[in-house]
């Protein structure tokens, strides 16, 4: 193998395309190849560095001064290309700008706020299970993984009832857009205008119901924490990252529990394992598969020299199954110590909505396990293809009441 001008010597070059349909269909052999090739690799197809081992992914996530987010967390370098939409004020920002906006969203999605919404989220989970028990046979993606977050999250944000059908398509554009200019990304952006228009409108203060997460963000303007023009963009972050992610997270958990009946049995015997079962599903399936960073200077990472202004692709999913870090990484074990997994990221950008995600996952799995004895997969699961998100399009199941 030879090193090209942009990649330092000693860094293995691979011709893997991690945004290709065949990769998405079964990423695990390729993840192993990426991990075993070396601590840092170079992907010729998109001219980016890649890290797939836990130690290097963790190191990149925790050095935001060197591996920055303000030049975009997708392939596109905001210093060289105009972003497809105005950049996020939190995800695509570096300290000190990030520190300020992050504090606002942390406050809006704090443990105290979770206590206030918990009963509502739990009651909606019970209602969903009521409906599923009537149906007996259903699609666990549409009727459960999508239906449940859709029944609570838009209300929690304070969105109007009209136009909510734009939410999942908008998120799908956002997560496709982090990828390279392949067909998934180009088509998503081409069709995004109506979704973008809807989202821009809903982010305005007058369209957000009092008491919701959206109104709480706007209230921070009155506190002087953010400006009136920043508030709508921070609401947009919740619209982009708060729904489709939990759809795929809950979908992952149900898919795991349906495939591994022994783990389902353990959960039924001890409902306090519900939070751990969700967390382990986030590690095991990694609904958010990848994010990029851009180097702010020349840097040496585990012996590899990376120049300034290079994109580095972090394989969160591969790190979450790195045998160097995890015992029996390919086993779904709801009692595993999952602390330190990078399914929600790590460091200063670690998911600010993690408490919302965990709350939804915990109350949904608790309701399912309390009232359902068995979940059987009754048809071929169909995959949904996205440049960043991993999840199913359809999962036909039949349930047996407890």
């Amino acid at each position, binding site marked *: 193998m030879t090193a090209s001008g942009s990649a330092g010597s000693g860094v293995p070059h691979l011709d893997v395309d991690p945004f290709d349909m065949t990769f998405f269909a079964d990423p695990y052999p390729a993840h192993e190849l990426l991990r075993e090739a070396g601590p840092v690799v170079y992907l010729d197809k998109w001219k980016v560095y890649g890290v797939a081992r836990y130690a290097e992914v963790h190191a990149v996530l925790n050095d935001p001064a060197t591996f920055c987010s303000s030049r975009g967390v997708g392939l596109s370098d905001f210093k060289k290309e105009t972003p497809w939409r105005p950049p996020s004020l939190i995800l695509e920002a570096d300290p000190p700008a990030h520190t300020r906006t992050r504090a606002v969203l942390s406050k809006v999605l*704090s*443990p105290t706020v979770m206590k206030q919404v918990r009963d509502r989220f739990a009651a909606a989970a019970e209602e969903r299970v009521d409906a599923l028990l009537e149906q007996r046979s259903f699609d666990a993606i549409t009727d459960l993984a999508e239906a449940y977050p859709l029944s609570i999250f838009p209300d929690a944000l304070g969105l109007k009832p009209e136009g909510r059908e734009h939410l999942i398509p908008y998120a799908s554009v956002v997560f496709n857009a982090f990828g390279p200019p392949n067909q998934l990304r180009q088509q998503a952006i081409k069709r995004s205008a109506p979704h973008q228009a809807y989202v821009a409108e809903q982010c305005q203060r007058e369209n957000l119901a009092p008491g919701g997460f959206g109104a709480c963000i706007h209230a921070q303007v009155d506190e002087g924490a953010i400006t009136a023009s920043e508030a709508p963009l921070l609401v947009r972050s919740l619209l982009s990252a708060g729904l489709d992610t939990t759809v795929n997270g809950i979908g992952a958990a149900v898919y795991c529990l349906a495939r591994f009946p022994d783990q389902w049995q353990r959960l039924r015997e001890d409902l306090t394992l519900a939070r751990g079962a969700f967390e382990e599903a986030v590690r095991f399936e990694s609904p958010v598969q990848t994010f990029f960073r851009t180097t702010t200077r020349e840097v040496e990472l585990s012996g590899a020299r990376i120049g300034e202004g290079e994109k580095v692709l972090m394989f969160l999913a591969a790190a979450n199954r790195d045998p160097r870090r995890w015992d029996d990484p390919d086993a779904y074990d709801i009692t595993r*110590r999952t*602390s330190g997994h990078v399914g929600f990221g*790590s460091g*200063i950008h670690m998911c600010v909505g993690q*408490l919302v995600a*965990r709350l939804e996952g915990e109350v949904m799995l608790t309701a399912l396990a309390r009232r359902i004895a068995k979940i059987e997969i009754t048809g071929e699961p169909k995959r949904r293809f996205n440049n960043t998100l991993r999840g199913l399009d359809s999962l036909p199941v039949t349930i047996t009441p407890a």
Partner: protein
Amino acid sequence: MPAIIFIHADGKPDRVETSGGESAMQAATRHGVDGILAECGGNAMCATCHVYVDESWLARLPAIADDEDALLDGTAAERRPNSRLSCQITITSELDGLVLRLPDRQV
């Protein structure tokens, strides 16, 4: 490098070497100390890294920030006057030998 001591709820001590500028939580999770969950990875969002600081060390720690104070009200085990979040305690050489007691539960 400074070392700190975690005392488990059952009284068993665990001595942990820290490395440059890390928090007590990071040192604990790096060494797999049971009893520190640290769900949020040190972002002061989860309160699952709760510890009781040995009384003799209390005065030597930096003051509690507002967000830490609010979170401590939501710990799983009872909040006491010596309760802290271990992710908010950066270990410096002055804290060599710090003793932190672990609560019986974090969730």
